């Protein structure tokens, strides 16, 4: 079995080639515009920064592939950092802190999943609700103040700020490993294939004997866990649980996911595309910063890139 051929075919069949080309063009253009852009330091920095959105986007993509939306991920990022930092400050234990963060993350995922998958309430509405609810809860609980990390654990500091061999930021390493695992699972685990089936054709999945509600419930759990992981990385970078953290991340994530070719209708998409989508948006944003473009323009250009990419994709489908 010519493995490389097969890999090429998969890439071509899923339209990732266009994304790779786009990414290459973005990198080439900014390399030309700024001498500081194409440097090891800058490229690895971007990977580090992008890893937080990458984790969130991967979770959101799994939910979308399963036919559901999760808008609550940005608020989740702020919420789970509170038990993380709080418990670490109180006990001095990173493990307990992370356990606390995971527990709250699981709870949020379970609430979203229960209401959407079992109570059959539209997940767009449910998670729009929990988006506000969680953010409001965070503001009330913290009195709109950030809680600084006062445990000063080296291990916690390293998670967000260290570099592997002094080169590759740990967040990029962690996100990379996790996302590769998700890519593999979505393709090679029966459960991953069932998420595609349930999202693409719930009725077919039901007739095949799958517990569709359970599959969709799991999607919200996965999405919340990915947001929790992102929150831990972010809290380490910031050295605090910040009440405004993650604000608007849900839309940055969805933008990258859609750019990466995941269908909003469910059942279609590839996490590899999502990785490329995240990288394209991250490099565009970083490159514009490098050439001192005002942030207003970063927003405008990000918007244009998303629309252009998706428009190209639907044109391509029409030609087929």
């Amino acid at each position, binding site marked *: 079995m010519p493995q490389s051929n097969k890999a090429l075919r998969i890439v071509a069949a899923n339209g990732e080639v266009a994304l790779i080309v786009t990414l290459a063009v973005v990198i080439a253009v900014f390399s030309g515009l700024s001498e500081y852009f194409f440097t090891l330091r800058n490229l690895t920095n971007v990977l580090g920064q992008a890893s937080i959105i990458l984790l969130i986007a991967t979770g959101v993509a799994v939910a979308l592939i399963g036919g559901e939306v999760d808008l609550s991920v940005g608020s989740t990022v702020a919420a789970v950092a509170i038990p993380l930092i709080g418990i670490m400050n109180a006990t001095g234990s990173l493990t307990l802190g992370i356990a606390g963060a995971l527990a709250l993350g699981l709870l949020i995922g379970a609430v979203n999943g229960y209401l959407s998958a079992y109570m059959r309430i539209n997940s767009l509405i449910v998670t729009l609700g929990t988006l506000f609810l969680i953010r409001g809860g965070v503001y009330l609980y913290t009195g709109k103040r950030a809680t600084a990390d006062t445990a000063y654990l080296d291990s916690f500091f390293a998670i967000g700020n260290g570099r592997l061999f002094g080169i590759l930021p740990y967040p990029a390493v962690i996100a990379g490993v996790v996302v590769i695992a998700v890519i593999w699972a979505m*393709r*090679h685990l029966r*459960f991953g*294939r069932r998420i*595609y089936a349930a999202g693409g054709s719930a009725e077919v999945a039901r*007739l*095949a004997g799958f517990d569709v509600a359970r599959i969709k419930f799991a999607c919200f759990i996965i999405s919340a866990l990915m947001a929790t992981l992102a929150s831990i990385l972010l809290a380490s970078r910031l050295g605090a649980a910040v009440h405004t953290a993650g604000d608007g991340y849900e839309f940055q994530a969805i933008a990258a996911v859609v750019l990466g070719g995941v269908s909003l209708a469910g059942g279609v998409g590839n996490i590899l595309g999502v990785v490329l989508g995240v990288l394209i948006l991250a490099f565009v944003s970083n490159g514009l910063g490098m050439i001192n473009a005002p942030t207003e323009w970063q927003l405008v250009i990000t918007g244009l890139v998303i629309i252009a990419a998706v428009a190209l994709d639907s044109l391509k489908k029409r030609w087929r």
Partner: protein
Amino acid sequence: MPDKTKQAPALRVSGLTKRFPGVLALDDVSLEVHSGEVLALLGENGAGKSTLIKMLAGVYVPDGGTIETKGQERHFTSPADALAAGIKVVFQEIALVPEFTVAENIFLEDHLAGRFGKVGWREIRRRAAEIFERAGFDIDPDAKVRDLPISQQQLVEISRALAHEAEIVIMDEPTSSLTPAEVRHLFQVIERLKSLGIAIIYVSHKLEEIFEIADHCTVLRDGRWVSSKPTAEHTNASLVTDMVGREITDMFPRTDRTPGETLVKVEGLSTRRLLKDLSFDVRAGEVVGFFGLMGAGRTELAKALVGYDPISEGTIRIADKPLSPHDTRTGKALGIGLLSEDRKEEGLMLDTSVTRNMTLATLDRFTKAGFVDTAAETKAAQGYTDRFRIKMARLDQAIRTLSGGNQQKVLLSRWLMHGLKVIVLDEPTRGIDVGAKAEIFALIDELAAEGFAVILMTSEMPELLGLSDRIFVLSGGRITGSFDRAGATQEGVLDAAIK
């Protein structure tokens, strides 16, 4: 078959009952089917066929009665249970994941997963290819199901049955969207399944298929069992009587009528895609039938005639006035309208009331200063529902809840209300019961007698021969044969259709 009746039947259903809130959908129904045998399950819409099938598929749980396979009682609480017991249902709405490959769909239930739930991709492809070889199907296991025609998707479903070593295969209206050649192939596949010892339950509206393929017939009506007999003991009429519950003496009533003025005159009509140089005319009081196999151009002609699709050459004149191409508005104004093949996609607003659906094209007439006069609207709608005997509870009922035949009548009312003189009907009885069909046929005759010109596009031979005053046969976008009523035979028409 004395040797077969000795052993337990592949499937035996006894006293099966299912209630839904307010309805008894299935009431004490029994049937049995043996290995290597085809049982036809017949009945009108609402007779309980779908409910029965869904219980056999494990989608519904029965309220009473038993299901036995090979003499063993079974209780299904999910589709997985039914499959484990060897029952595979091929639904009309194909239950495959369109984005997955053929091979993956065949092993959708368990993905041949090994330890830790790892998908056995290699094994999936190998076994899919093996099944295709054994069954003699020519399908690419790596193709996406989305890209296959319905006929091949059905074969994929049947392959799924083979993969699970199903002993009972239930096919729900399998030929409803197949071409005649595909139907032939499906019948060969069914013979093949029989020879493998698989029991088949075949659900269909099309009686001629039943006589060709079924060994036994079980008929349901209003949720109850009516009869079970070997097919050989049935005639067309006896089957219809069992299904409808009354004798339909004349499926195609015919009033004496004399054609009047020419209402439609088509000369040299061509479209860029398909139609080539068609010329014909249709007079008031006439039913002109167009026959053609799939892809022959029936629907294309219907759409071009009412100005829905552009034409590249030729002229269409309605009541001696030219119809400019690609202009349904003048089409309507001149008095030609289309009742399309796909009622749900192109004609009906499913969740809207009967009245609103009926008055959609004529809303101007009931509107004063921008306000709709609902009293007048309701009165007009009531007139048509009475005239066409449309069965419904209330005029403000959502049209979704009406039967196919009654929906068709509502659409017809819409165009008559608009003052049409020429009605183009594209497959007017697709998916409609025998009983309702007879009513639609009577209605078509009635309309012609009243002086309407009716253009009928159909792929149903009995309907064509029974209704048409004149017949044109289409093949590859051309007229390849024309017959008058007296000279038309099934052989002649088919001959022209495959030219």
